[in-house]
């Protein structure tokens, strides 16, 4: 079975910016929030949340640099 055969995953992959990193963030977001709801504030959950936001910010910056280089 392919990952894209799962209904929600398929929907996310087809709707977004055709970028697997962003798609992964959309899919991981509710899982991470559910973990925080269940476990509460701890070093691990804080680390996971920081990693999530950092991945988004750095990936956005990385894409920006790649795009700018492509235009030069």
């Amino acid at each position, binding site marked *: 079975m392919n990952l894209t055969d799962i209904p929600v995953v398929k*929907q*996310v992959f*087809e*709707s*977004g*910016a055709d*970028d697997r990193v*962003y798609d992964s*963030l*959309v899919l991981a*977001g*509710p899982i*991470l*929030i559910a973990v*925080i*709801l269940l476990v*509460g*504030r701890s070093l691990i959950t*804080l680390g996971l*949340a*920081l990693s*999530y*936001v950092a991945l*988004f910010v750095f990936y*956005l910056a990385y*894409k*920006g640099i*790649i*795009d*700018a280089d492509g235009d030069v």
Partner: protein
Amino acid sequence: MSGSAATIGRDLGRILQALAGLMFVSVVVSLAWGEFYAVPALIVSGLIPFGIGRLLSVRFGDAADPGKLHGMVIAASGWLCVGVFGSLPFLLVAWTVELSLAPALLRTPSQTATLAAFTDPLNALFESMSGFTGTGLTMTDDESVLPHTLQWWRTFSEWIGGVGVIVLTTAILARPGSGSLTLYESEARSEKIHPSIVSTVQTIWWIFILFTFIAILLLWIAGMPIWGAINHGMTGLATGGFSITDNSIATYDSVAIDFVLLPIMLLGSIAFPVHYLILQGDLRNLYRDLQTRWVFIYMSLGSALLWAFVYFGGTYETPFAAFRYGTFQFVSAATCTGFQTAVDATNVALGRWPAHAQLTVTAGMIVGGAAGSTVGGIKLIRALTLFKGIRFRVADVFYPDTAVRRLTINGRRLSEEETRREFEEAAIIAFLWFLFLVAGVFVLLLVLPSGEYTLQNVVFEVASAQGNVGLSAGITGPESLPALGKVMFLFNMWIGRLEIIPVLVMLRLVFRRGGVYT
């Protein structure tokens, strides 16, 4: 039954079914929090629009695609119906508790004054309309004592309303064709991300969901409890402004939370097509796109001006306090969010700020952010079109009659015909906006106890309702606002969300059919 009524009825039915789905989904929240008394209320609330919606969509299933007139009437009546049926959870949960139905079985709690306000259908309707239009003015005295189910329903309604109920319905139904495009445009949106309208609305939701997770996690990292982060992340990004605490964001009294909310509110005030390009790495859109560039210029200038007013005017003693509250309140107002940090419990309430500071915040609410985002107000592009158009006309006098001049807006060189059309559209919306603002002020001055509120308080409150902002100078409340004032605000919120024209088109159609005039 005429063809028009069938088309309108069919699409209204679909919108109502989508609304019912939102109510059924919300049952999970009631179960998770052990609020079993809210489950029957939510199910009944969902069954009513679902039944009516199903009836309409089946009965008129083969109706023609909507044209421009249908689109406007569907948008106006759809938002009204969503407001009306969306009030059912408030009303039915409040009456379940009021009548103390099956307290042992459903764990029904005792009634609170806050929840009791929703036993009045007008208050429930006000809350629902305020939620779906993303306004944030509230009929609650203390949001923190509301059942979690209703806290969620308020948040969820703003989150859905921020993007739009028609955008939601189009995304769910995935109905391709010109009919969906007509409806999409009737809901105060115009730009497309993809050639296909269905792909466009699905991508809008994808962006919105991604940003929602980022917003929730940022707030949680900044120290907000997770339930608060979920609710405020959703309402902040949707630029709605409903809170789950008594004093909005001031309850947390946290510098970190205040500053984390600034980019969240700003994200909500930038158009979705621009977000899409930025996510793909084209960061130059942050300054290349006229509206996005002006979001930052306008927010910076307004915040600086407000800082100067509240610091040099003596409202705040330190430059940092003036910067913290001035910036937050201007961004909150201009993005049409309505979160409040300026309250008496921690500093100085907005209603007690100097008149010129209040009017600066009011100006922010009137203009709003970018068209194609989640904000209300006249929108930056119209304000800029008006400004540039006026400058163009005035400068025209200094050129010879033979000179060929073109107005340039957002990199587009407009022909004479295009200039006239764009300027006319912006002028009409702005004129109508001020007309209904004045009407709202007039009604409020008529119904409010004389001497209780200043004129700037009243203008502030009406601009807040019509701009779908939600900041309050203290007038809005279940007891403080008379029934006629609530009805006026319902109208202000409704027209504000749809940019007036669709509502006027619908009313004209209703009055003509009703024989009021021909």
